[in-house]
């Protein structure tokens, strides 16, 4: 008997493993266990009875197996009694035992299901627990009642019949509990949905309460759309109307768009646990179909708008942006799941806790090269300038010599002044005339002419005065006094002459300056104005000093050469001043804002801003070296890309790859040719660079690029 039961259990186990419905098989196993226990418990008073009962039990066991096999083959769940078994149970010989077995298995199944239900999500529901507890209490009552009867009744037949009754009652009890349970489940589902709808109404859909038309069909909606399109043709501001229309659509649960949107929102509200793959695929399909419909819808409206308005491009952008913003969370979840491997890969390529703040990235090298280039240019320019200076100074020296001769002549004349006053005056006049002629040769003619005229007038006046004075001299015959006066006057005149000469000198200097400027302009446009002014001042100083040493030039040349030598040394082993190296923290902060933006265009804008911030910070880095003008460095991709890698790594943006993919997918193709495309593809360069790294990227190695 035990062996047979054992075989039975084994068979059931095999069936369990073979059958697809594992839960059913498990239930059968449990049922068999119960049966075996029940059969053992049955009291055996006589040997004959025992033999009979053994035979019956064997037969019963066989029947059990047959029944179980049939049940499994028919894949009927929950141990519902079959007609075959009831037919067998109706037969006079084996009726009771058979019924007993079937009811027992049935009740076991029910209890199992109840237990399962209790464990499945309703353990915290008080009503479900009440049902379960009631059923258990009833069972206890029944057990106590029938147990007392079994104990009181001596005949085994009655005992078994009591058992059967007990089991039937228990079964009924369980069945009632199950029904209650099912009702409760449905109730809970409805309540959940109502809750969600309420939440939706509170959160998103406030307009639907105003227009609660639940029975709107698709046809009505289409009609509405058509009407809307017609009104759009006549309206003066279709932009506004389109956006309003889409807002209303997205909030209407009956509209095909709105349904999708609300579904997403529901999902978002409900979705505390993770999304399974099936749901993901379904969502993808929904989104695709939604986008396809949206495309059609928008393009149709575009065609209408196209005939009436010019600015629908902007409107379409707004609508696109609006839809994407509405759906962003749901769309972006897909991107995160789809590119999870890539995101993880990127994050594995660098260490987030790297405290390296140095971000040189080869800028230093290029900086020194540019600096060298600058000084090379400067040196050549300086050489040319010095040559020109020498020429100019030689010319000036010649002129000065001539002027000195003139001055000597004047001095000699002054000595003879007292003797020949009139002659002197004539000579002065001649001198002035000569000077005027020289001046006329100069470029600045008008000013000089005016000056000359004034000078001539003054001269005439002086002459008149002198003549009058001479007359007075003759009258008063006070020669000595007159002589003194004349001397003073002559001295004044000489001073005037000197002043004029100085003016001439200054004019010559100005000429030289102009020449220098022209020459400098011809040489290059690179020189800063300040430098020009400095050089001019130096020239002027030298001219004022008159004494010029060639040794100064040599010293300067030596200085320049020495500087070059120093530069060469620096190029080989440039020292790193940590204070000068930029942290690029500003651009990192700007870059981090990408993940907060819910729109492709906004994301791109913050990316562009970050890019510009990097450029500025590189420029600041350069500007710390004041000896080379800022503008000498061209900040191109050679500089920016390594720094961008550094900034991206340090910014540590979550789901970077999906961000990039989202941008690429949702930015318009026209923008891909312009700045936006440039920025996105340079971000892609950074990402691909990170992915191509075989080992972890240490930021200090970036400085060797």
């Amino acid at each position: 008997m035990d062996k047979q039961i054992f075989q039975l259990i084994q068979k059931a186990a095999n069936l369990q493993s073979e059958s697809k419905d594992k839960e059913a098989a498990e239930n059968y196993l449990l049922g068999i266990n119960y049966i075996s226990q029940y059969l053992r418990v049955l009291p055996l008073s006589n040997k004959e009875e025992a033999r009979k009962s053994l035979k019956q039990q064997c037969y019963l066991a066989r029947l059990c197996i047959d029944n179980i096999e049939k049940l499994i083959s028919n894949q009927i769940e929950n141990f519902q009694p079959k007609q075959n078994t009831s037919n067998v149970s109706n037969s006079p010989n084996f009726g009771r035992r058979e019924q007993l077995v079937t009811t027992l298995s049935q009740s076991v199944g029910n209890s199992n299901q109840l237990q399962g239900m209790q464990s499945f999500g309703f353990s915290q529901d008080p009503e479900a627990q009440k049902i379960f507890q009631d059923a258990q209490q009833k069972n206890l009552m029944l057990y106590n009642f029938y147990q007392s009867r079994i104990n009181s009744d001596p005949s085994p037949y009655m005992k078994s019949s009591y058992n059967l009754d007990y089991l039937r009652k228990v079964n009924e009890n369980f069945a009632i509990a199950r029904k209650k349970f099912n009702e409760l489940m449905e109730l809970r589902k409805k309540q959940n949905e109502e809750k969600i709808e309420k939440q939706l109404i509170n959160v998103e859909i406030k307009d639907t309460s105003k227009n609660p038309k639940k029975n709107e069909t698709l046809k009505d909606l289409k009609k509405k759309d058509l009407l809307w399109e017609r009104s759009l043709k006549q309206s003066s501001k279709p932009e506004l109307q389109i956006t309003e229309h889409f807002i209303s659509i997205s909030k209407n649960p009956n509209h095909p768009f709105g349904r999708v949107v609300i579904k997403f929102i529901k999902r978002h509200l409900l979705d505390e646990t993770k999304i399974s793959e099936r749901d993901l695929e379904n969502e993808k399909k929904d989104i695709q179909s939604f986008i396809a419909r949206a495309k059609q819808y928008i393009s149709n409206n575009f065609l209408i708008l196209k005939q009436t308005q010019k600015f629908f491009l902007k409107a379409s952008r707004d609508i696109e942006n609006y839809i994407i913003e509405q759906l962003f969370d749901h769309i972006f979840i897909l991107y995160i799941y789809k590119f999870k491997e890539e995101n993880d890969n990127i994050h594995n390529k660098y260490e987030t806790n790297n405290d390296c703040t140095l971000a040189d990235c080869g800028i230093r090298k290029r900086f020194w090269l540019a600096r060298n280039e600058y000084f090379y240019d400067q040196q050549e320019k300086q050489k040319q300038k010095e040559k020109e200076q020498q020429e100019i100074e030689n010319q000036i020296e010649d002129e000065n010599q001539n002027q000195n001769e003139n001055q000597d002549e004047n001095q000699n004349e002054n000595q003879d002044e007292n003797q020949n006053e009139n002659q002197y005056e004539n000579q002065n006049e001649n001198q002035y005339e000569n000077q005027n002629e020289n001046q006329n040769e100069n470029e600045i003619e008008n000013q000089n002419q005016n000056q000359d005229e004034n000078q001539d007038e003054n001269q005439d006046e002086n002459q008149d005065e002198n003549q009058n004075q001479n007359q007075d001299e003759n009258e008063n015959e006070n020669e000595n006094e007159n002589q003194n006066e004349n001397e003073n006057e002559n001295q004044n005149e000489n001073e005037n002459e000197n002043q004029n000469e100085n003016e001439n000198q200054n004019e010559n200097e100005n000429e030289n300056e102009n020449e220098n400027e022209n020459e400098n302009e011809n040489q290059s446009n690179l020189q800063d104005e300040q430098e020009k002014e400095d050089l001019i001042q130096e020239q002027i100083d030298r001219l004022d000093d008159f004494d010029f040493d060639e040794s100064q030039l040599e010293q300067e040349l030596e200085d320049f050469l020495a500087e070059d030598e120093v530069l060469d040394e620096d190029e080989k082993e440039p020292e790193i001043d940590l204070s000068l190296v930029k942290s690029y923290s500003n651009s990192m902060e700007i870059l981090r804002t990408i993940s907060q933006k819910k729109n492709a265009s906004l994301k791109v804008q913050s990316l562009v801003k970050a890019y510009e911030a990097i450029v500025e910070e590189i420029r600041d880095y350069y500007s710390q070296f004041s000896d080379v003008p800022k503008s000498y460095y061209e900040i191109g991709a050679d500089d920016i890309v390594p720094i961008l890698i550094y900034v991206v790594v340090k910014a540590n943006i979550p789901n970077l790859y999906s961000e990039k993919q989202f941008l690429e997918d949702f930015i318009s193709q026209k923008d891909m040719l312009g700045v936006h495309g440039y920025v996105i593809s340079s971000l892609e360069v950074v990402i691909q660079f990170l992915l191509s790294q075989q080992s972890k990227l240490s930021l200090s190695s970036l400085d060797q690029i």
Partner: protein
Amino acid sequence: MTFVTPNASKIVILGDSGVGKTSLALRFTHNEFHDLELSTVGAKCFTKSVHVADKDVHFSIWDTAGQERFQSLAPIYYRNSRAAIIVYDITQKKSFHEAERWVDEMKRHGDEDLVIALIGNKSDLNEYREVKMKVAQEYALKNNLIFLETSAKTGEHVEDLFMKIAEMLPSVHAKIPENLDHNFGIVSISKLEEKEKRKEKKNCC
């Protein structure tokens, strides 16, 4: 209405680092060297439109990073481009070999219509020349390339280069990239527009 500006064409500048790619683009777009206000440059890729043979060609010039570590990532930059300017430094022989490598790559992976120009930059430093003009010229002739020696510093031949490219560009209409499905309605409309245009043209004829 036009979604894709009709004559926008993307140009990529390739070449070794320090060859003068950026300054070449700057010279063309701003016609200045070093003195320009850098605040307007840098982040933005350079754009300029040129009028050649009764058509306006709008260039958007993409500067690239020329370091060896980024060479394998160049396809990201040069996809969908209509022309490629490959720059070498006439005072560095190494950069010319690099340029040859770029020419091979663009011939292999670029589009059939792609216009390729080989440019020897820094022609103002003729004293330190390492690459002979004849060698480069012959190489360019063999491979059907536009060849010029330019100087971004003095502006020599820079304008000529871009005018030549504008002349060589095969069609006036911009190439519409294939993967446009991501954008709402834009593809369908632009295609519809093209169809309408064609119809109009047929009617006119």
